């Protein structure tokens, strides 16, 4: 029992109370599981128990009828046992994940996947100790239909298209040729080893070539789940990541075909040339068919999302359902479901994202991440459980030879293929890259599930196969997975750049695309830049028109990027609550006076840098601002938990937030740039002091304006008088010379000051210390805009 908490218990000993509480909870969960599993496990094959329980229920019913009084409380576990157990597993998985992240030291040394397998082993062992049959948790049905799709969809939807397409040739080479090589090399040599074993009367001699090849084709494919789990933690550079990960995704088609081929032929016993040809054709059908099915569903999803603007709540659902349909449809024809999912996600994403609301996008993102991480956790735990459960037949020769051959064939395959690929590649793969690609070839649960699918009667060695598969998986996940991180650091392999993409980089990426296309055109041959350009143009001209509803979604990539960046900045600003709090003793007046006389000079860069909003847009902002100010109060009253995005102002308002934040950001930057006297001033101080100045609570110079500001403030809804008062507060350091921006910013200032007045009122009503007031004040001021609005119910209490 307590052994179940072993891996977490040891490092967690002597921790804080909450962690201990969590451990206790885990123990409880396991305890509960222990009570529950025997019951459920006893009836593990799903079909029998139901009949069983029904019988019993009927019997009970008849009994009830005659004798008993109406039962006030009755226990009917069988009624709920399947969903209950599923929920329990998910809960266990989630709690495990939670537990690991509470122990930072552990997760930095051992990859999560290893820990999860250990947990699975312990849980499985525990169930076995309880003398019950371990449920076949990782059976192929649940694995391929429930656990795998979320992970693959997550990968496909967020696939970095650009590096993927740029390296498609290499990826395909590794995925197709590499996997074929692995399968035949391992299978062939394994067969040879089985045959030459001298004088050993083991049953290895009975092993024929085809089962060997089948086994090899199962074991040779790199597993996306394992690769994702490990590579996400080592933060390797984009190229290597996409090479290994792309390979693991695309080799699915090869695995599917090889698996079905060999399974088929193992039954028949002979292979002809024709079968080989059919195999090749079948590979093309499986791969391209999968992609086609995925693309069709992807376009359907994109087209559907075009019309969802009135029912925003179900938008995310379309993405999930269409993708799942794509997966199932592909599986139905034995096409590559993984490729269908990848294609579906990749195809639909740009269009869907342009159509759906921002909130839906966030929902999709979080749902996908949540599902995939839970699935991944479950898969690794189940792998451990299944290991304990599985009927093993350990054959030293077979297992060691398999592990060795897997390693050798991977290394030879990668080196050989890179040698060929490097002839075609512009950016060559270095020796280090090759090493990481070879070393990152992890095997995982897909192989196990495929092995599990084998039928006992066709393959008498199934148990030995499963044992060997599990060994290889454990070897790669534990040994390679644990050592790859130190090795990456040791070899100084280039890491992923964490820095965000800047607008300059985006501009030049675009510029470069066009430039290279142009140069190719001048050279007179059509390279891939030319075709890419052509594709982009078709996409823009026809496809986007069909699939994207609103005009804004069709804006060029650069502008879209710019808007996205603004949005991100705005959100960051809002989420951070306006950045860190500036120290209270700010020599704000000094810096301002410093800057003020030099305004004409200082204004120059300011003017240059500030985006000049066109008149129309400014007017638009102003109206939004006005309506918004009134609305903040209304929204409080009319809050309804059933309306998610029913707000008609929603879109406009978010627009407004962006614009406003942009101005604030820019201003901040400029001031920061110009700020000589306050080199260490935190980024938010300018906003703060400006707001202070505007409200007149802090500044002691220009008292007249202070007065004026106070006078105008009592009525927060009054708009005009405030505006009039504002130009007198022109002392502001950042007020630019362009009249447009002045007006705009004055408004914001007015807004800020008004908020503050409101805040003051609210505070006088609430009894609070001076310190609390101070803090509230700075907090409110440091983000005078929508961030205050975000938690509107707090500072705006009437």
């Amino acid at each position, binding site marked *: 029992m307590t052994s179940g908490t072993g891996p977490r218990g040891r490092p967690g000993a002597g921790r804080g109370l909450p962690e201990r509480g969590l451990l206790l909870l885990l123990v409880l969960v396991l305890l509960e599981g222990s009570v529950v599993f025997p019951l459920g496990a006893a009836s593990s094959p799903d079909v029998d128990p139901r009949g069983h329980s029904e019988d019993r229920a009927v019997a009970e019913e008849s009994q009830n009828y005659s004798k008993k009084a109406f039962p006030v409380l009755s226990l009917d576990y069988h009624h709920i046992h399947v969903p209950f157990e599923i929920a329990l597993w998910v809960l266990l998985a989630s709690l495990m994940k939670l537990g690991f992240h509470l122990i930072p030291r552990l997760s930095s040394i051992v990859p999560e996947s290893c820990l999860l397998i250990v947990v699975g082993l312990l849980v499985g062992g525990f169930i076995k100790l309880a003398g019950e049959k371990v449920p076949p948790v990782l059976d192929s049905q649940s694995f391929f239909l429930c656990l795998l799709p979320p992970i693959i969809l997550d990968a496909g939807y967020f696939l970095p298209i650009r590096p993927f397409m740029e390296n498609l*040739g290499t990826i395909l080479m590794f995925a197709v040729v590499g996997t074929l090589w692995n399968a035949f090399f391992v299978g062939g040599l394994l067969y040879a080893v089985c045959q030459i074993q001298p004088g050993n009367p083991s049953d290895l001699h009975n092993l024929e070539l085809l089962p060997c090849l089948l086994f090899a084709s199962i074991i040779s494919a790199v597993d996306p789940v394992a690769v994702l789990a490990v590579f996400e933690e080592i933060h390797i550079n984009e190229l290597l990541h996409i090479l290994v990960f792309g390979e693991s995704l695309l080799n699915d088609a090869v695995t599917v075909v090889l698996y079905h081929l060999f399974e088929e032929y193992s039954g028949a016993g002979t292979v002809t040339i024709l079968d080989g040809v059919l195999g090749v054709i079948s590979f093309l059908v499986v791969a391209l068919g999968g992609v086609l099915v995925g693309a069709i569903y992807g376009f359907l999803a994109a087209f559907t999302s075009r019309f969802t603007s009135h029912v925003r709540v179900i938008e995310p659902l379309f993405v999930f359902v269409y993708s799942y349909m794509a997966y199932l449809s592909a599986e139905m024809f034995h096409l590559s479901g993984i490729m269908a999912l990848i294609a579906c996600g990749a195809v639909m994403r740009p269009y869907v994202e342009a159509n759906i609301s921002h909130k839906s996008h966030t929902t999709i993102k979080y749902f996908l991440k949540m599902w995939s991480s839970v699935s991944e956790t479950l898969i690794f735990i189940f792998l451990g459980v299944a290991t304990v459960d599985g009927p093993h037949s350990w054959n030293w020769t077979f297992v060691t030879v398999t592990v060795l051959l897997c390693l050798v064939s991977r290394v030879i395959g990668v080196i050989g293929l890179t040698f060929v690929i490097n002839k075609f590649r512009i950016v060559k793969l270095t020796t280090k890259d090759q090493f990481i690609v070879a070393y990152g070839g992890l095997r995982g649960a897909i192989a196990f599930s495929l092995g599990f699918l084998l039928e006992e009667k066709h393959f008498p060695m199934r148990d030995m196969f499963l044992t060997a598969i599990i060994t290889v998986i454990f070897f790669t996940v534990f040994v390679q997975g644990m050592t790859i991180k130190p090795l990456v650091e040791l070899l100084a392999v280039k890491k992923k750049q964490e820095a965000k993409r800047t607008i*300059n980089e985006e501009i030049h990426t675009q510029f470069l695309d066009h430039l*290279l296309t142009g140069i190719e055109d001048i050279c007179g041959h059509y390279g891939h830049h030319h075709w890419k350009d052509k594709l982009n143009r078709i996409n823009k001209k026809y496809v986007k028109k069909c699939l994207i509803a609103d005009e804004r979604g069709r804006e060029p990539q650069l*502008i879209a990027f710019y808007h996205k960046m603004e949005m991100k900045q705005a959100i960051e600003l809002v989420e951070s609550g306006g950045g860190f709090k500036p120290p209270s003793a700010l020599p704000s007046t000094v810096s301002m006076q410093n800057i003020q006389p030099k305004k004409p000079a200082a204004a120059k860069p300011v003017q240059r840098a500030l985006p000049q909003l066109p008149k129309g847009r400014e007017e638009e902002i102003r109206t939004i601002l006005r309506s918004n100010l009134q609305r903040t109060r209304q929204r409080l009253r009319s809050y309804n938990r059933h309306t998610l995005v029913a707000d008609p102002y929603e879109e406009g308002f978010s627009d407004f937030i962006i614009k406003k934040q942009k101005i604030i950001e820019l201003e901040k930057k400029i001031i920061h740039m*110009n700020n000589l006297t306050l080199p260490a001033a935190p980024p938010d101080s300018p906003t703060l002091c400006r707001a202070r100045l505007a409200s007149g609570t802090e500044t002691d110079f220009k008292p007249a304006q202070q007065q004026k500001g106070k006078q105008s403030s009592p009525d927060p809804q009054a708009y005009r008088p405030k505006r009039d008062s504002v130009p007198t507060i022109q002392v502001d350091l950042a007020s630019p010379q362009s009249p447009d921006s002045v007006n705009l910013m004055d408004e914001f200032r007015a807004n800020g000051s008004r908020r503050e007045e409101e805040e003051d009122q609210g505070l006088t009503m609430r009894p609070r210390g001076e310190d609390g007031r101070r803090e509230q004040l700075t907090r409110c001021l440091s983000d005078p805009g929508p961030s205050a609005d975000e938690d509107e119910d707090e500072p705006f209490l009437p």
Partner: protein
Amino acid sequence: MLRPRALRTGCVDLGPRGCQRVPCAWCARVGDRASRTGRAGGAAAAAAAAMGASQTRPEHRHQDLADRTGFSLEQIKNLHKRFQQLSGDEDTISKENLESIPTLANNPIRKQIIGAFFDKRNQHRGEAGSCDQIGFEQFLMVMSHFRPPTLKMTAEEKEAMRREKLRFLFNMHDTDNDGTITLVEYRKVVEELLSKSGSIGQEAAEAIADAAMLEVASTNVPTMGPDDFYEGITFEHFEQILKGLEMESRMHIRFLDVDTTTMRCGKSTS
């Protein structure tokens, strides 16, 4: 899956001498050459002279060009074919020739691309301004900025190549050759980039250029005095902001290397 052989790049067979030249060294050499062929006579005359020479001894001439631009002989042959096709068998090429390329018509930055071919700064002559006609040699010079890096290059050579490529881009932006990209120039760049997207593009271009400029200023000169004025992006700043783009490996195209691909490949594998 893999590219057909015909599209193969010639990087394996560029040979050791290919790209391993530090640009300033060969700037000097090219400048030398230019003065020999008669700088005063204008680019057209120089080009004509060069072409005249090339027509008398094409092999030798091509070898010479290969030495200086890092292209292989086959690539030069192919490019020469294209050059003649574009110029209509003339010795020089004019802006009109390039503008008439049909596939180029849709390119939003067509003007800048064509301008770059006639920009003397890109021809390693150490002079500024633009010319009306360029010869094959100048054509090759411009094209040589788009050669891919090779596996054998050392870190310094890569760095030199990166600078060279960045300089080319920088020159495309810095139209008045004053060493900085001013806001006006940068706005122009973004405007051109978005010129195919109608009125939204026009409006957004300025805002984007401004934001980009501000970003450059704030990353490079984090603290500025109140009197300071950010003049524009210098080359150093330009390098700084595009550090993440790995220009040396991205700014390249595949030059056709049809004729002897197979033979050379066999050689390099053996």
